[in-house]
């Protein structure tokens, strides 16, 4: 069961996002209102440290647990998919104040309503794949 380590990382992620209030609807609202530095500080510091971390991956200074170079899969390119998809995602994020990670963390808090949101998320994914050949990417 080497997957246990991923449960442990998930537990840590759930605790960190709960304690830093990232999963609170209010914090997301406040972010989009530009009324607090909190969320910008979290995402900003994670990205700045991430850039430094990835530069070590690319140089090969930090290797993976097998001693191999860590490769980062590039994101799929496409202006329409990222700008339109991103905007649709943002509308949902602004409305429910939770992106996919926080949805599952909120489930752990016993927030019943989030089951409907997760169900909606699954429907959205099905819907995307059903019509993706008609969408600009």
């Amino acid at each position, binding site marked *: 069961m080497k997957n246990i380590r991923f449960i442990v990382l*998930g537990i840590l992620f759930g605790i960190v996002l709960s304690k830093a209030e990232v999963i609170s609807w209010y914090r997301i609202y406040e972010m989009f209102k530009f009324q607090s530095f909190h969320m910008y500080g979290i995402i900003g510091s994670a990205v700045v440290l991430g850039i430094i971390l990835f530069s070590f991956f690319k140089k090969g200074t930090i290797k993976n647990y097998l001693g191999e170079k860590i490769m980062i899969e590039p994101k799929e390119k496409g202006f329409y998919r990222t700008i339109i998809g991103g905007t649709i995602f943002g509308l949902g994020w602004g409305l429910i104040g939770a992106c996919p990670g926080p949805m599952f963390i909120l489930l752990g808090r016993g927030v019943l309503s989030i089951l409907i949101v997760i169900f909606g998320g699954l429907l959205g994914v099905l819907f995307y794949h059903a019509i993706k050949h008609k969408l600009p990417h």
Partner: protein
Amino acid sequence: MDFILEPWPWYIGGPFITLIMFFLFYYGKKFGISSNLESICAMGGAGKLHEFFTFDWKKNRWNLMFIIGTVIGGFIAFKFMTPDQAIALNPETISDLSEIGFQNAGVQYLPDEIFGLEALLSIKGAAILIIAGILVGFGSRYAGGCTSGHAITGLSNLELPSLIAVIGFFIGGLIMTWLILPLLF
């Protein structure tokens, strides 16, 4: 010890997220939550509806374990690490919210106006929950990632598609927060 029970500041939260991302890459994986939604669909038999979902979801089992962990983590933080559920909001935010119909903002962790039982059992409230979910699910897969895959991993890797996606996240979030939310509540 008191520190653990209080809300954690951004300079603890942000670096911890990078640390978790480091371990995921160190163990040969990646940091991306929204692809789990596809795995769950595939696991639930969506392959019968669309050929895309016939992929072998078992290879993503590690990521499903990760989100099971997040559920447990949410439970632990809620039950044992957060004696005070209030969110210390900017007074401006509280008054803005009160203007659009959200009472007692920040007294609880989440607004009852969206997550409360009464909202859940109303047509409007249930519609908001399901539509928000559809937007997040649809948008994240169309864009090729969510906050973890684009905003954290993609920006850390200095990827242009991720920068465009994050700009999109903000366009959508700002339209919702400034224009649509006041109409809904």
